[in-house]
């Protein structure tokens, strides 16, 4: 199809091969084992589930047949893994990254370099032992994130650097040698602070409490272990996610700055690495759980178009000063304290609509961002830069009409909405018009979408 632009340029004979034979690179030779692993694991799971049947079979027809069957399956899986590794190739052209996979159903993904939002490198524990890494590309408009698993460590870093360099418009000849852009560390989250912050978070404790109370109750009520287990297992997962699991993934959270954007490295067992180009940030959320507030701690989350890393976390926990400094790197026009000071609480009559939680709802506007506040116990400020606004909506339900209230919704490109609920109706109508104007004006003055421009403070 688009082979004319290829440097190799030979006309395709049968099927138009997007990656001409002899070109493109293969993944790390370890990869087939990863592919073969899944069927074998599936087989083991099936065998475990039907353990008694397997035992009968083994006693009846003899162990030999069973082992032979397993051996054939393992060999088949390995052969499949090997063959699918052989056909998997990737190629970087001037405009695209092409990945070809699939043994029976061939699939070629063309990722447009200028649409790549972020490239993450991830190293699971086992992969770290073998010195390989996974490269994950976030592209706007493609449903799932495309990934290259696995690549040699150094190769992954080089490829990531090359892709980012090409995406940012460095001359194609220079791109392969551009190498990893230099980075300097801005902040590292202290392990003790992280531990404390997780301990002060309600979610882990809440799940623990629920597990301690509900499971015995169910056990007593049904006098059977299985319903209790059915409740306990998801609760255990929640406890894990809220405590130790979160600690392990967020351990050593490092934010550094490079010309490509902010780099996030984290994880104790599995090391993850993500790059967030500041120009792609659609919204920033400042989250302040109840017990963090006396200490002035907060969490900073980002909404980036495309699938974000670790649910778009920029900082799992930070002091106000750190957050202000880091936020300045992403949204240079935003002064966090002034911005949050702009937020005013919903009018008093809103208590007839939402009695106690009304105090949590608030709204404010600065020259740079639209701010919406929600939450009484866990306070969340959502900041949307005017230039990133996709559409503005005003909604008013029947009860809100009676009270003369309305809600303003500001939609941004990362499929999120900042909602200023329960504002005065007349004010909200003016505000929607004003917001449309502000967005229009700041879109005109907004800098273009190239993020590899040197930072003024760099």
């Amino acid at each position, binding site marked *: 199809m688009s082979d004319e632009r290829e440097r190799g340029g030979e006309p395709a004979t049968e099927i138009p091969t997007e990656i001409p034979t002899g070109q493109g690179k293969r993944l790390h030779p370890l990869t087939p084992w990863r592919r073969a692993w899944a069927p074998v694991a599936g087989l083991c799971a099936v065998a475990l589930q039907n353990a008694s049947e397997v035992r009968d079979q083994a006693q009846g027809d003899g162990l030999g047949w069973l082992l032979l069957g397993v051996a054939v399956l393992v060999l088949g899986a390995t052969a499949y893994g090997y063959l699918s590794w052989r056909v998997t190739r990737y190629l970087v052209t001037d405009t695209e990254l092409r990945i070809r996979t699939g043994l029976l159903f061939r699939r070629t993904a063309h990722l447009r370099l200028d649409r790549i939002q972020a490239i993450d490198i991830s190293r699971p524990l086992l992969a770290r032992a073998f010195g390989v890494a996974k490269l994950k590309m976030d592209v706007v408009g493609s449903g799932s994130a495309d990934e290259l698993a696995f690549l040699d460590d150094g190769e992954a870093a080089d490829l990531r650097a090359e892709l980012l360099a090409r995406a940012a418009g460095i001359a194609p000849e220079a791109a392969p040698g551009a190498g990893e852009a230099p980075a300097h560390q801005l902040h590292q989250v202290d392990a003790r602070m992280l531990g404390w912050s997780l301990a002060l978070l309600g979610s882990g404790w809440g799940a623990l409490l629920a597990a301690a109370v509900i499971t015995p109750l169910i056990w007593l009520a049904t006098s059977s272990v299985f319903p209790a287990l059915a409740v306990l297992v998801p609760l255990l997962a929640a406890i894990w996610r809220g405590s130790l699991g979160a600690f392990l993934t967020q351990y050593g959270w490092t934010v550094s700055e490079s010309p490509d954007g902010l780099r996030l490295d984290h994880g104790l067992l599995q090391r993850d690495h993500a790059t967030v180009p500041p120009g792609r940030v659609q919204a920033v959320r400042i989250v302040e759980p109840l017990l963090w507030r006396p200490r002035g701690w907060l969490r900073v989350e980002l909404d980036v178009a495309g699938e974000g890393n670790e649910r778009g976390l920029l900082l799992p926990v930070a002091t106000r000063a750190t957050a202000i400094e880091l936020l300045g790197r992403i949204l240079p026009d935003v002064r966090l304290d002034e911005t949050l000071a702009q937020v005013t609480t919903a009018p008093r009559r809103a208590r007839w609509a939402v009695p106690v939680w009304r105090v949590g709802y608030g709204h404010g506007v600065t020259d740079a961002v639209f701010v919406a506040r929600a939450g009484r116990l866990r306070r969340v400020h959502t900041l949307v830069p005017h230039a*990133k*606004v996709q559409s503005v909506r005003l909604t008013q339900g029947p009860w809100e009409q009676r009270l003369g209230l309305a809600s303003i919704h500001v939609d941004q490109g990362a499929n999120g909405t900042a909602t200023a609920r329960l504002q005065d109706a007349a004010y909200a109508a003016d505000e929607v*018009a004003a917001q449309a104007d502000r967005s229009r004006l700041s879109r005109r003055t907004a800098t273009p979408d190239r993020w590899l421009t040197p930072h003024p403070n760099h």
Partner: protein
Amino acid sequence: MDTVAHGPGPDGRSDAADRWRPIEPGVLSLRRLLLACWLGPLTVAAVLLPTLLGAPLWALLAVPPLAGTCWGWWALGRNWRSWRYLERDDDLLIDRGVLWRQLTVVPYGRMQLVEVTSGPLERKFGLARLQLHTAAAATDATIPGLAPAEAERLRDRLTELGEARSAGL
């Protein structure tokens, strides 16, 4: 630049009343027809069955569907009258709803895709539906009842303006 930049809300009628456009009356006919098709037979059945079976008092069961039909007839009219849209220099405004009011402002520069669809029933009534998509899935910008010619004109104009004002994500 933009003469109607202020007050596009439900209260902004004075400024731009002449430029707000309603949607086609065909939408109302279509929706009322659908309502009648659903609830009408139900009402008739609820009246006829008990009478034929010799328990005429049970025919009172027909009251809720009948009331529903009447209320729906009236509510659809009210809802239809509430729909209107306005093309401004830089954005499209869609205002709708009576009980649940909603005003949507979509800047032309943000449009990723403009879609005109028309189902078989809609075609019978000479209607087309125009839908705008932006990068935000929450953007709910649909105009259900346009004359096909108007829908095409609007689509072409929006596409043209969208290209001229396009901005990145």
